C-alpha cells in the first residue's frame, strides 16, 4: 500500500513537470523563448531527444517514425570469421590457390601480419547453393543453410580498422576509440524498454574469453550510464549482486525494505526532495528484478525438444545457451540483446583458431544454435518485429597468412577491412537476398560497398530513426552513431 502511494506521488510529480515543460515550449514570445530557441539549437534539442518519463529513463518512447524492428539480437563472432570459408564463394580464388599474390593486391596496403609476398589461398571448404534464393553457403553451416531463404546477406561490408580492438569498437560504437555509446545504448536511449523488471539492454558472452576492449563494446559512452549493456551470466549471479547474501531470505529482505521505505518516506517529508521518492521506487524495482532476472535466465524450464534444437545445456556458458536466452529475453520485451562469441581469429598461428583446426569447431558450435534461434523466433511470431544480425568486425584476406615472412604449418588468413560478410534476418529486411558483390577473390567490394556507417544508418532506419537527426550533444558536437562522414540507408534491402 505504501509503495502504491509513492508511485502515485512519482506520477504526480512527473505530470507536474511535463505540464511545465509544455507550458514553456508553447510560450512562444519574449526573451525566454529566444533563449530557449538558442539553447535548443546549440545543445541538440532541435534533433530528436527521447521524451522518457522523468521518473523512468527506460520508459518506452516513440522513434522518429514507426520502425519495423522493435527488438534486436546481434550475434558478433569475435575475431572476424572468414567470409571466404562461409558465405562468399570464390571459384576464381580456388584457381589461384598456392600461387604468389599479385603485387597490385599488396601495393599501398597495410596488413597486421602478412609480410613480403604471400601466396593466395583458395576456399578451404566446399560450397553449395541453398533454398529458392540460391545463396552460396559452405558445408560448415549445414543447419543454418536450411534457413537460407530467411537471410539477407551483405557481402560488401567495409570498415576503417584492421585491428580487433578498434574494429570491434567501430562495429558497436561507430568509433575506433573507447568512450562512445554502443548501438544498444543508442537504441535503449531512443526507444526505452518494454519490460520494466529486466534490463533493457543485455549482453551475453561465450567462447571462454572477453572481447579485448571489454565493457567498452557495450558502453553507454557519453549517454547516461543507465543505458549501458548489462552483462548476464550463465554461471553465478545472472546479474551481478542479484542474489541476497547468505542469511538474508527473500522474506527478510521484504521486511527490511518495508522498514527502509517507511524511513525514507519520512525523509521525504522532512526534506521534500523528489529524488527520495525515486530512490524508494528503485529499491522496489530491484526487489522485483531479483525475481524477474533469474526467471528469465533460467533455461531449465524449457522443453526437451527446445534444448535439443539449440544444443543447450543448463548451467553451461555456451553460445547455444546464449541463443536460447536471447529468445527468452526478447520474448520478455528486452530491447537489445548482444551476443559475443570469442575465438574466430583464424590466422593459422595456432591450432585452436586455424581454418583447418579450431575454425571447424567454432562453426559447429554456432551452426545449430543460430538455426534453432531463427526457427524458434519464427514459430513464436517474434521474427516479425525482431531483427537478428550476424557479423564479425572485418573480413579475412584471400592470401594465406605468412607471419614473419615464412610459410606457416597451419592454414589461416590475415585481417581484411576491405570486405566482409554480414547477414540479417527477420523484421525490416528482405529475406532471401544478397546485396553487394566482392571482386573475384573476395578481397574488396566491387559492387555496392557498404561501410559500417551505412550499416548503422540502415539499422537505425529499421528501428524508426533518421540517423542524421538522432544525436546526443557531447564535446560541443551533436554526436551521432554514424559520425560526421556521409552515411546512407541501404534502401534496397529494406522490406
Amino acid at each position: 500500500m505504501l509503495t502504491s502511494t509513492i508511485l502515485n506521488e512519482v506520477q504526480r510529480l512527473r505530470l507536474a513537470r511535463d505540464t511545465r515543460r509544455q507550458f514553456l515550449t508553447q510560450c512562444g514570445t519574449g526573451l525566454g523563448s529566444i533563449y530557449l530557441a538558442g539553447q535548443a539549437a546549440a545543445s541538440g534539442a532541435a534533433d530528436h531527444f527521447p521524451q522518457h518519463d522523468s521518473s523512468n529513463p527506460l520508459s518506452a518512447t516513440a522513434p522518429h517514425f514507426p520502425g519495423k524492428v522493435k527488438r534486436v539480437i546481434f550475434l558478433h563472432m569475435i575475431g572476424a570469421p572468414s567470409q571466404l570459408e562461409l558465405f562468399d564463394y570464390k571459384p576464381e580464388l580456388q584457381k589461384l590457390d598456392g600461387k604468389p599474390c599479385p603485387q597490385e593486391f599488396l601495393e599501398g596496403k597495410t596488413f597486421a601480419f602478412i609480410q613480403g609476398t604471400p601466396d593466395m589461398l583458395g576456399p578451404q571448404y566446399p560450397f553449395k547453393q541453398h533454398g529458392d534464393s540460391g545463396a552460396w553457403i559452405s558445408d560448415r553451416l549445414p543447419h543454418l543453410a536450411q534457413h537460407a531463404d530467411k537471410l539477407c546477406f551483405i557481402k560488401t561490408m567495409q570498415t576503417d580498422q584492421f585491428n580487433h580492438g578498434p574494429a570491434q569498437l567501430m562495429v558497436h560504437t561507430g568509433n575506433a576509440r573507447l568512450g562512445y555509446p554502443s548501438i544498444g545504448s543508442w537504441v535503449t536511449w531512443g526507444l526505452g524498454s518494454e519490460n520494466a523488471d529486466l534490463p533493457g539492454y543485455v549482453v551475453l558472452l561465450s567462447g571462454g574469453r572477453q572481447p579485448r576492449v571489454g565493457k567498452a563494446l557495450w558502453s553507454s559512452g557519453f549517454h547516461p550510464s543507465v543505458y549501458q549493456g548489462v552483462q548476464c551470466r550463465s554461471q553465478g549471479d545472472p546479474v551481478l549482486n542479484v542474489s541476497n547474501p547468505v542469511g538474508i531470505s527473500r522474506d527478510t529482505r521484504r521486511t527490511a525494505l518495508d522498514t527502509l521505505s517507511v524511513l525514507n518516506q519520512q525523509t521525504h517529508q522532512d526534506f521534500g526532495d523528489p529524488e527520495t521518492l525515486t530512490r524508494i521506487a528503485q529499491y522496489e524495482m530491484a526487489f522485483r528484478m531479483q525475481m524477474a532476472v533469474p526467471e528469465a535466465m533460467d533455461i531449465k524450464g524449457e522443453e526437451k525438444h527446445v534444448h535439443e534444437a539449440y544444443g543447450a545445456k543448463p548451467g553451461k556458458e555456451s553460445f547455444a545457451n546464449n541463443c536460447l536466452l536471447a529468445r527468452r529475453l526478447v520474448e520478455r520485451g528486452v530491447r537489445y540483446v548482444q551476443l559475443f562469441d570469442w575465438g574466430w581469429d583464424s590466422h593459422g598461428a595456432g591450432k585452436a583458431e586455424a581454418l583447418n583446426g579450431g575454425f571447424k569447431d567454432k562453426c559447429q558450435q554456432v551452426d545449430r544454435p543460430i538455426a534453432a534461434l531463427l526457427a524458434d523466433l519464427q514459430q513464436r511470431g517474434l521474427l516479425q518485429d525482431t531483427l537478428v544480425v550476424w557479423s564479425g568486425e572485418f573480413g579475412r584476406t584471400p592470401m594465406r597468412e605468412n607471419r614473419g615472412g615464412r610459410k606457416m604449418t597451419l592454414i589461416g588468413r590475415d585481417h581484411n577491412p576491405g570486405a566482409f560478410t554480414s547477414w540479417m534476418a527477420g523484421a525490416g529486411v528482405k529475406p532471401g537476398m544478397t546485396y553487394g558483390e566482392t571482386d573475384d577473390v573476395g578481397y574488396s567490394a566491387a559492387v555496392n560497398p557498404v561501410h559500417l556507417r551505412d550499416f548503422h544508418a540502415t539499422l537505425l532506419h529499421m528501428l524508426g530513426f533518421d540517423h542524421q537527426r538522432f544525436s546526443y550533444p557531447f564535446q560541443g558536437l551533436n554526436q551521432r552513431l554514424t559520425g560526421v562522414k556521409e552515411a546512407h540507408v541501404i534502401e534496397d534491402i529494406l522490406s
Partner: protein
Amino acid sequence: MISMKATAVNHHLLGTMLSLAIACATPARAGDVDFARDIQPILNAKCVKCHGGVKAAGGVSFVYEDRVVNFAADSGELVVSPRNLDSSEMFRRITSDDEGEMMPPPEAHPALTESQLSLIRRWIEQGAIWSGHWAFTPPTKPVVPTSQHDHLAVNEIDRFLFHRLAAEGLNPSGVEEPGRLLRRLSLGLTGLPPALNEVDSFEAAYAINANSAVEVAVDDLLSRPAFGERWATMWLDLVRYADSGGLGIDQRRTIWAYRDWVIQAFNDDLPFDDFTISQLAGDLLPKPTTQDLIATACNRNTQTNNEGGTDDEEFRMEAIVDRVNTTWQTWGGVTFGCVQCHDHPYDPFRHAEYYKFMAFMNNTADSDLNDDAPRLKVPNDLAKFAEVAALRESTLRLKTQIWTTGMELRDKTLWTAATSLTAGAQNGTKYAVEQHDGHAEFFATGTVSTKTETEIQMPAENFSDQPVTAVRLTVLPLNPATAEQNSEWGFVVTDLKAWIVAADGQKTAVDFRWSVPDVPWLPTDPWRQIEANGEHWAANSRIHYARQIVLVPSAPLNIGDQQQLEIHVQCNNVSGGSHPLVIKRGHVASTSDPRWATFADQDSDVHKWNAQLFEEAKRLNDVPGTSIPIMQQRADMIARPTHVFVRGNFMSKGDRVESGLPASLLKVAPASSDSATRLDMAQWWVSEQNPLTARVFVNRVWEQMFGIGIVPTLEDFGSSGDKPTHPELLDHLAIRFQRDHRWSVKQIVREIALSYAYRQSAKATPELTSRDPDNRLIARGPRLRLTAEFVRDQSLAVSGLLTTKIGGPPVFPPLPGGVWQPFDGGDKWKTAEPDDPDRYRRSIYTYMKRSIPFPTFATFDAPSREFCTPRRLTSNTPLQALVMLNDTAFVECAEALAKRMQHEFEGSVRDRLAAAYRAVTARQADANRLDQLLQLHTSLADSAQTNPWIVVAQVLLNLDEVLTY
C-alpha cells in the same frame, strides 16, 4: 521503474526549461541591446547552421565579427551596416516576404519572431556592437551588491546570492542542524563522514559560538590528508587517470605516483598556477624537481594501443589530439575538439588554430611504444627525491656534453662519401643501389622482412689513402620526400658489426670504441649505442628524416687495395608484433681526420665525463622506486613538424603550422612568438590575461559543493553552453582565487564552505522545489547524492572498516565473481583478504582498469576514464540498490556496523539503534524512526538464520539520508 535526475536524462531539455524560468526573471534593460545576451542566441539558433563555422554560405559567418559587420558577402551586399538598416542585407532578408530571398529559408522555418526581429533591428540601429562572448573577456572585479538579507551574510558570496534572491522575491533558508552541517562539511571537503565524537564536540562548540565552531571545523577538515584524496578524485576524472593503457590489450600501466602527486598537491595547497604549469610543462622548467616531472604524467594518461599490427603513429596522434582536447576542457572549459575537423560552429576558433595549438604538444618523445617510454624513476622514499632530481640533471648534462662534443666534431669533419657499394640481406629483404648527389645510396625494393641484417660492402676505392678514423652511417626513410609529412615505420639497430675483408675472403673484425648518434638522450647510454643488450640507436617507431651515427674504430683502419670494408647492421625489432623496424634506405661516408683517432680516448674529457656518467647512472638506477611515463621534449634537430589535418584525418595533411594560441583569445593575451613553447602555453593558462582558467576552476569547486555550477555546463563555457546564473559572483570568485588568494585552492574552498549559503538547511518547500528544482538560486542548502567512490568510502568509515593509509600502488578490494576476465591474462586481480588492510582502502586507490571498470563505481556513474570527464551524469537505478544491498563489500560493512552496535555501542537495543542511526546520519533519531528500527529488529530476533543486527545495519546504510548529504 528506473529513474534519474532530470538534469541527467533530459539535461538539455530540462536544463533549458530551468534556464528559461530563471532567465525570464531578468528582463533586458529597455533600449540596451547586448550582443552576447540578446543577439548571439538568435544567430546560433537561426543562422549559424548555414552561416557558421562549419559552413559559411555566401561567405557569411555569424561566428566572426569580420564576416558580418561591414562585410560584403559574395553577393556584394554588406551583411550588416551599423546604424543603417537599409544597407543591411541581413535585415532585408530576415524581413523579406519573397520565398527566394527570405531568411531563414522557408524549409528551415519557423521564421524569426517579432520580438527577435525587433532585437536585431535595435542592435543594428544602436551600432551593431559585437561585444564578444562573456567567457572570452577577462573577469572584472564586480561591485558587491546589497540586499535586505545582508544581516545573514557571512561573506561576500552570500551578498551576491542574496541580491539575486531578493530580486526573485525569495528568502534564504534557515541554518542547517549542526550535526547535519558537520556531515555536509566533512563529506564535502574530505569525502568522509564525521566520527560520532566529532559530531558531539561540534554540536557543543556550535551551541556556544556557531561561527567559530564552523571555522574551526572547516580549518581542521582542510588540514586532513583526506582533503587531498577527495579533491584528487575530481581532478583524476578530468585528466582521465587510469592504471591501464586502454585500447588493444589494455595492459597494466604503472603511473600511480602521479595520482599520489595530485593528492599531495591538494594537501600541500600547491597554488593552482604551479599545479597547472607542472602538469603541462614541468619538464621544461629551468630546474625541474622530481615532483615537476611526475606532474607531467598528467598528459601521459592517454590511451596507448599495444595490439599486434597497430600503427604507432596513428595512436600517437590520437594521444596528442586527446591531450589538446583534454587541456582545453580541463583548463578552459571549451569544446576545442570541434575544431579538429573544421572551424568551431559557434565559437571563434579556426580549424588551423587547433593544429597551431597541437604543435605545442607534438614534440614530446613518447610515441605509443609498448614500454611507455620515456619514463622517470620515482624513488619510493620521498627523502630521495632531491637526490634523484640532482642525479637526473647531472646525467642529462653529462650526456649533453658528451654528445655535443661528438656532434661538433662530426660537423667540422670533412667526410668522403662512399660512391660504390653493394648492399643485401640474407632474409628476403632486397636492396638496390643508385647514385645520389655524389654518393651511392642503397634502398629496399619490395617488402622488407623482419629481423633484417643489412649487409653493406665497400671496396677500397671508397676510402682515401690515409687510414680511416671514423665511419658515418646515414639512414633515411624509404621515401624521404613524403616521410616528413607522413612518417614511415622506423628502425631499431640491435647490433652492428664490421670487418675488413681480404681478397681471399678472409675477414678481420673491426672493433668500434665509440659512437656519436644524433640523439643526445635517447638512448641513454652513449657508450653502448650499438650493443645488442643496451639501448639502441633508433627511429622508434617512426622515421621522418635522415638519421646519422658516427662509428669510431679503436684503431684507424687500413683498407688495402684488394680489400673492402663490410658492415652488418642488425635490426631485429618488430613493432606491434608485425611491422619490421629495419633499415630501408641509407648511405655511408668515412674520414681520415686525425681528431677522431684520439676522440674519447683515455686522456680525453669525453672519456672522463663518460666514466662519471657511468657511475652516476648506476647510482640513479640503484635507487629503489617505480618508473612512470612522463613528458620529455624531443631534441630540436629531430623535432616533428605539425600540419593541419584536412577534415581531422591524420592521413591527409594540409599546411604546415607553427605553435600558437587562438587569435580570438590573443586579443586579451600577450602575443606569442612563432617559437612559443609548451612552457609558454602552460604559463598562458594561468596568466592574468587568460579569461577562462580561474572561472572554470572556481566553477568546478562550486559544482562539487552545491551540485550544480554557476555555469551549469561545466564542459562548455562557449556561446552554446549555459550562461552563468550569477555572472558577478563567478567573476568575484575567479578574482578572489587568482589574485587575492594567489591561486590557493584551500582558500577558495574555505570561503565557499564558510558562506551562509552552504550552511543553509536543505529542507525544500514544495513551492521552492517546483520553482527551482536544481537549486540554482541556492535559496536552500545543497542536498547531494554521494558519488561512486564516496558511497563506498562512507560505508567503510561508519562501519569502522576504513584503512586510512595515503598513497601507494593500486589495491584490489573484493570483486564479484566472473567480472575479472582481462584480455591480458597476466593482469591478475589479487583480492586483498579480510585480514589485509588494503581490502578497506579509500576508493581512489582501487586498481582502475579501463576495459573492466570496478563494477560498483560503474554502477554509480563513475566514468571509466578513457577521456576527460568534466561532469558526471547521475542516475538512480535498481542496479545501485542491488550493489548496496548484496555486494560483498557492502555486506561486510553491514556486518561490521552490526558488530559495532552489539559490542561498541551501549545500553538497550533501542539505545544502540539510536547510536547507530546517529553514526550514519550525524542526527538524533526521532521516536518514530527508532520505533521502526526496533520493530524490525524485534521481528527478526527469533530467527535462526538471520542476525537482526545485520539486517538493521543494511537498512541504516541504505537510508536515503545516508546516501545523500
